[in-house]
């Protein structure tokens, strides 16, 4: 037998959706996390509710590289429909756990095979009601796996207790099933494979959360007051989390709501109501994905032009069109950058971790109100719907920035003299008043049509030019309010620019490249328009690889346009098949280009 392989492998569970296996799979993930071992879990699920093949991939890595890998060392095969494919997907020397009622032949000789009599084991527990047997059965494979790779049963209990919010009954039921599995394995299986878990302390002080939860919580700490939304995968859970936590965190002195959430009739109304709320002075947000975003186009253009603050979370899924609703992508950048007819500009925030989903959750409102503009936060399905390790969420480190708002007393001071679209401060950002202001000079008339500095309708050519030039200026000003890129480097010749959920894969790819002698610096972009630091980074490197998950190298295009004289340095590493990227893919592609 080969040497032990400890805390460095991937586990894939092949099952069907709607079968309750997500509890089991999350339990494995959490149990490993509780053992202090860096871990990640990715759910690869179909766009339906019940009965189709689903895979859950867990990566355990002692060095903290938790990007998805294509290689599967351990496969737990529960689904007869995908069995053949699942078996074939194992690396040589890999391990197959399988539900022993699957009768398909296993022809591979290079793997270790453990059959699991799950149904039998469940039936042997008289405490499991017959209608729950299938559900609870999933915990049996958790127990068997635990026994075979050395997962701590107590961490399983902790995971279950969390999952069932402490409710003793389901915890016991499920824990017993896991224990039964473990006992059975102990008695019946002989360890023949090299894969082991061993407790560490690498996750101490960390938490696990998904990006949508983090975003929703961040928004609550950002003082969100209005949510207009429409369900769509993978954005739904963001609004549903607001629904869950807002009532707990945000009541006034009389126990009444300081916010309103409306599930509108569609996405046009979702963003429309945010435009209304943002205009009227509420911190307004919506969350959506591709098709919904496309429907928001007309209002996005209006919010840009009438200068209304609001926040749009785009949890990107694979487009174009309905595309792959349950697959991840970074393919909406170009669209958002040009969202709406006529000349526009867009402010985009690009969170690069679940913790940043929380941070940008509150910061997005400050930015939107400061700049009186829609802010698009570009998350994705991988962030939004998967559990990630993260440092704990931190309380906002600065007071809210409500931007330039004039109330009654301000107008009294200025004798009621003000102009809604007047560039008083020379930064392109005008002042605004809010409905409900009772000063008789407070009101103005808002429109998406041409208007002058005093919000009066105007078709004057010069007025139009002035307003559009001021908007351009405002988007220049924006750069100082946007999160700066995060740069990790020490003067290498090769630079990498990436953003969002590719971060772990890029980090790991850099390590792989370093092993080959290729040192790289890394700029993680956090906002568009680009900060000056981005230009400096490009200037400071001989080659800059731009890594992203889309077909057309959208960020690469945007960087090229802004850095024409240096454009030849910029090399696109763009690929998108719906799966989170692997470090290997990035590594291979850069290596090939470096060796050319």
């Amino acid at each position, binding site marked *: 037998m080969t040497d032990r392989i400890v805390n460095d492998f991937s586990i894939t569970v092949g099952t069907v959706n709607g079968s309750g296996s997500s509890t089991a799979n999350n339990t494995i993930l959490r149990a490993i*996390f509780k053992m202090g071992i860096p871990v990640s879990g990715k759910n690869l699920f179909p766009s339906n509710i019940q009965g189709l093949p689903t895979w859950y991939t867990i990566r355990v890595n002692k060095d903290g590289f938790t990007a998805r890998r294509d290689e599967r060392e351990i496969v737990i095969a529960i689904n007869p429909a995908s069995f053949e494919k699942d078996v074939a997907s194992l690396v040589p020397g890999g391990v197959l756990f399988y539900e022993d009622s699957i009768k398909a032949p296993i022809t591979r000789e290079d793997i270790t095979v453990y059959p699991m009599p799950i149904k039998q084991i469940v039936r042997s527990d008289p405490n499991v009601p017959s209608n729950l047997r299938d559900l609870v059965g999933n915990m049996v494979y958790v127990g068997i796996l635990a026994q075979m790779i050395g997962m701590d049963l107590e961490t399983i209990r902790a995971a279950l207790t*969390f999952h069932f919010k402490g409710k003793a009954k389901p915890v016991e039921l499920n824990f017993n099933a896991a224990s039964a599995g473990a006992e059975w394995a102990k008695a019946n299986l002989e360890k023949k494979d090299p894969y082991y878990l061993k407790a560490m302390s690498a996750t101490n002080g960390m*938490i*696990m*959360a998904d990006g949508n939860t983090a975003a929703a*919580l961040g928004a609550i*700490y950002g*003082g969100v*007051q*209005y949510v*207009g939304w429409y369900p769509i995968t993978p954005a739904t859970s963001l609004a549903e989390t607001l629904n869950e936590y807002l009532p707990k965190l*945000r009541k*006034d002195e*009389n126990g*009444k*709501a*300081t916010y*309103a959430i*409306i599930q*509108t*009739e569609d996405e*046009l*109304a*979702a963003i*429309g*109501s*945010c*435009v*209304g*709320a943002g*205009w*009227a*002075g*509420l*911190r307004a947000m919506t969350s959506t994905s591709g098709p919904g975003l496309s429907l928001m186009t*007309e209002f996005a253009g*209006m919010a840009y032009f009438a200068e209304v603050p609001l926040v749009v979370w785009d949890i990107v899924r694979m487009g174009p069109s309905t595309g792959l609703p349950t697959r991840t992508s970074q393919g909406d950048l170009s669209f958002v950058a040009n969202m709406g007819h006529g000349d526009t500009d867009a402010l985009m925030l690009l969170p690069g971790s679940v913790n940043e989903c929380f941070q940008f959750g509150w910061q997005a409102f400050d930015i939107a109100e400061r700049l009186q503009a829609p802010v698009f936060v570009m998350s994705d399905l991988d962030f939004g719907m998967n*559990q990630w390790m993260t440092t*704990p*969420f*931190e309380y*906002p480190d600065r007071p*809210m920035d409500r931007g330039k708002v004039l109330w*009654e007393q301000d107008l009294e001071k200025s004798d009621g003299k003000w102009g809604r679209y007047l560039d008083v401060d020379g930064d392109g950002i005008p002042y605004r*008043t*809010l*409905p*409900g*202001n*009772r*000063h*008789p000079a*407070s*009101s103005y*008339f*808002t*429109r*998406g*049509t041409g208007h002058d500095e005093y919000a009066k*309708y105007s078709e004057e050519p010069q007025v139009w030019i002035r307003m559009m030039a001021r908007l351009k200026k405002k988007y220049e000003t924006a750069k100082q309010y946007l999160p700066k890129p995060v740069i990790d480097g020490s003067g290498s010749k090769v630079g990498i620019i990436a953003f969002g959920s590719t971060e772990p894969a890029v980090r790991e790819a850099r390590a792989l490249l370093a092993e080959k002698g290729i040192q790289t610096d890394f700029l993680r972009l956090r906002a568009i328009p680009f900060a000056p630091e981005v230009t400096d980074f490009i200037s400071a490197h001989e080659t800059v690889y731009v890594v992203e998950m889309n077909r057309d190298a959208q960020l690469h295009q945007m960087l090229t346009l802004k850095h024409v004289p240096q454009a030849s340095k910029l090399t696109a590493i763009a690929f998108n098949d719906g799966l989170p990227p692997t470090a290997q893919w990035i590594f291979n592609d850069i290596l090939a280009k470096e060796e050319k």
Partner: protein
Amino acid sequence: MAQPLPVAGANVQVNLTGLSRNDYRGAPSTLCQGCGHNSIASQIIAACYDMNIVPENVVKFSGIGCSSKSPTYFLGRSFGFNSLHGRMPSIATGALFADRTVKGISVSGDGDSANIGIGQFKHMMRRNANMLYIIENNGVYGLTKGQFSATADIGLTLKKQGTNEYTPIDICEEALIANASFVARSFAGNPKQVKELLKAALSHKGIAVIDIISPCVTFNNQDDHLHSYAWGKDHEQPLQEISYVPPREEIMLQADMQDGDIVEVALHDGSLIRLKAIDPGYDATSKLAALTMLEKAREENLLVTGLIYIDEKKPDMIAMHDLSDRPLNRMTESDLRPARETIAKINDLMF
């Protein structure tokens, strides 16, 4: 709360809030002369003046169209939002959460609300926001020069468009079956009724829809078709004589109300709508009666006007959301950002 502007000169007549009629006007109209929309704007001005409404307590909304321009022409001291074609209801929905003491007055067109905007219209009814929703209904798209709207008469022939083959949408029926809490119909050629209905609607808490037939003199004013002044004059049949009795006013029957079948509807603010039934026995609190009446009016080719339906008990949007008594848009960080100590608890809730 209000800060009324000083009244210029002593001989200007003012209302109880100290405002002159002028304070309720807007910019000069840029609509066509004779357009029904202008006459409605005048009645909005008159109704608000009569009701002593403080302009700063109102927010105006509209979509896109000639009708949707008209908020520019009244209540120049109120905030206004001329939004997108067919999307006014969504804008209003969000905005009306900002300050619950502010009343919404919105103007839309038949194209704006029955064609492109019928979806937002229907769902706005369900939310029962505290807003007067006027549809200035002329059966055509005025601003784009005279195409059929969804309320156009079947068989109507227009210059470039040919003959309309589609059965029209009845805005009042649409509002009713979507469970709107106040539904009325009127006619720009009957300004007195328009005004009284506006007052009643402005006192209603919740969505108040008034479908006002408002002829487009430029593109659709054919004597033999609904949406013309002539047809309206010939075929109007008011359901009731309506008078609005403000809160705290002595409740006394006016002379012309002495005989006949008088019904009074109490509104949430203490005001009353007094209805002298012309169609005796018509029950404006019954949805079924309303639907029946509208269907019969259609069959008999009548323009029945008046208060069609009212439900004072339906909770409005603010109530449904159990909203704070304080205006949301005046809340500050201390109201809106959970206390520092909560963050640890939140982290504990994660795994």
